[in-house]
């Protein structure tokens, strides 16, 4: 491997990515590159197409045109579960935890792509299966600990409050140690103190080598945390660059931030 040139491939790259719905183009020819490592933010007004872009990237929605590369491979036509196996994980804007399952089982589901035991192994209770299962439980507990829910591991997920369910989604996504983590509005429903804790959590996640791409409307959070920012408006990319430039960009201010927020951000 030593002679392979150290290519600086981006972890995720979309080109000309487009998704049309009857009567509107939700995502319109977006080129997005996310380098390996760090936190990258996707912001934009309500309805700009951020969630749709996430759905395209994670494979839940098929693109009308354009393509998506992940870790150097073209994944445009890959099913969502294949993408998860390649190391992509996500959370949802409208929370989707498995309500009837315990927190631990939710987290274990996140490890699903990493389990290799065959049906025979499972039924015969082969040592390899038991080792794998023990290992998985340990990993899942770590993931719950990461988000501060370890003590509630055996509770039903449906009984969690809104904010806690968001954290559980992050734990589920992180259990599988993904290369890329997509977070759709992780701070929604959290108060400023909790948001600060979330920032710390995301830093920890980045520290483990996972790249984070997030959508968020909390600008303090985004600006303090991100290494780069992409701004969408009406499905189109209107800005891409470091956060400091984004909050000064007149187009971004006009479309999204508004002068007050921009001023407050600048004042900090």
């Amino acid at each position, binding site marked *: 491997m030593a002679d392979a040139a150290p290519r600086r491939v981006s972890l995720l790259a979309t080109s000309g990515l487009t998704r049309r719905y009857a009567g509107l183009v939700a995502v319109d020819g977006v080129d997005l590159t996310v380098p390996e490592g760090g936190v990258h933010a996707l912001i934009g*007004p*309500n309805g700009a197409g951020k969630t749709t872009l996430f759905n395209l990237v994670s494979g839940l929605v098929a693109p009308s045109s354009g393509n998506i590369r992940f870790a150097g491979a073209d994944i445009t036509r890959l099913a969502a579960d294949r993408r998860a196996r390649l190391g992509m994980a996500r959370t949802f804007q409208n929370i989707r935890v498995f309500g009837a399952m315990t927190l631990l089982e939710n987290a274990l589901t996140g490890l699903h792509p990493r389990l290799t035991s065959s049906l025979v192994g499972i039924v015969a209770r082969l040592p390899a299966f038991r080792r794998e299962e023990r290992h998985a439980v340990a990993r899942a507990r770590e993931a719950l600990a990461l988000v501060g829910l370890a003590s509630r591991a055996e509770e039903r997920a449906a009984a969690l*409050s*809104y904010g806690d369910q968001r954290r559980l989604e992050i734990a589920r996504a992180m259990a599988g140690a993904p290369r890329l983590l997509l977070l759709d509005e992780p701070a929604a*429903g959290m*108060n400023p103190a909790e948001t600060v804790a979330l920032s710390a959590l995301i830093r920890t996640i980045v520290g483990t080598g996972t790249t984070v791409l997030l959508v968020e*409307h909390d600008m303090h959070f985004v600006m303090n945390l991100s290494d780069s920012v992409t701004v969408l408006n009406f499905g189109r990319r209107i800005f891409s660059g470091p956060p400091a430039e984004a909050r000064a960009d007149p187009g971004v201010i006009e479309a999204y931030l508004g002068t007050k*927020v921009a001023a407050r951000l600048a004042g900090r």
Partner: protein
Amino acid sequence: MLQVIGLTVAYGRTEAVRGIDLSVAQGQVVTLIGANGAGKTTILRTLSGLIRPRAGRIVLDGQDIAGMRPHRIAARGMVQVPEGRQIFASLTVAENLVLGGWTQRGAAETQRRRDSVLGRFPRLRERLTQNAGALSGGEQQMLAIGRALMATPRLLLLDEPSMGLAPLFIEEIFAIIAELKADGVTILLVEQNASAALEVADIAHVLEVGRVTLSGPAARVAADPAVVAAYLGG
């Protein structure tokens, strides 16, 4: 206008709200702040009749409404914008608005409310014939608020109305709250955006694991060092 006395609510064996007292006077904006899981949503759901309280009284306009069915409570002018929006995904935006005005008989009044809602949220006007389920998260939040405004509420219960909204819209939402207040609408506001909430509110209550730990005029609560540390990201 609204008095809550010794309210206790439980899910099975766990008590999520333990004997709280609250009161909301005519024309006031009262805010309820607290960490995730403190019981804010539980309180609002109980006020609207979606959950039966285990103990305590809920007095609206001098009448105990604890245990009353939700549609009757709504008909009395206490209207809620629920957490997580709860818009009718399979109906169109326009249809969602019509349903918001369900308690409002009279086509002219409905039309007037609708115009004013669409005036506030032009984005909804563009999406009128679209299925609400296909709206973006923020658009859904606008719809949820707009839907509640269709009912001409006297007392509006808002559960995290700014959640998922772009900064420009959050400003808009708080402006609307201020406007509604000016129009004489009484508001009980649950918010994570505590600084903005404390700014519009007259009275604030801090909720911790089902108990009220601090109450008072919003300005005083906002100045409390513990609150600053815990909720204002100070």
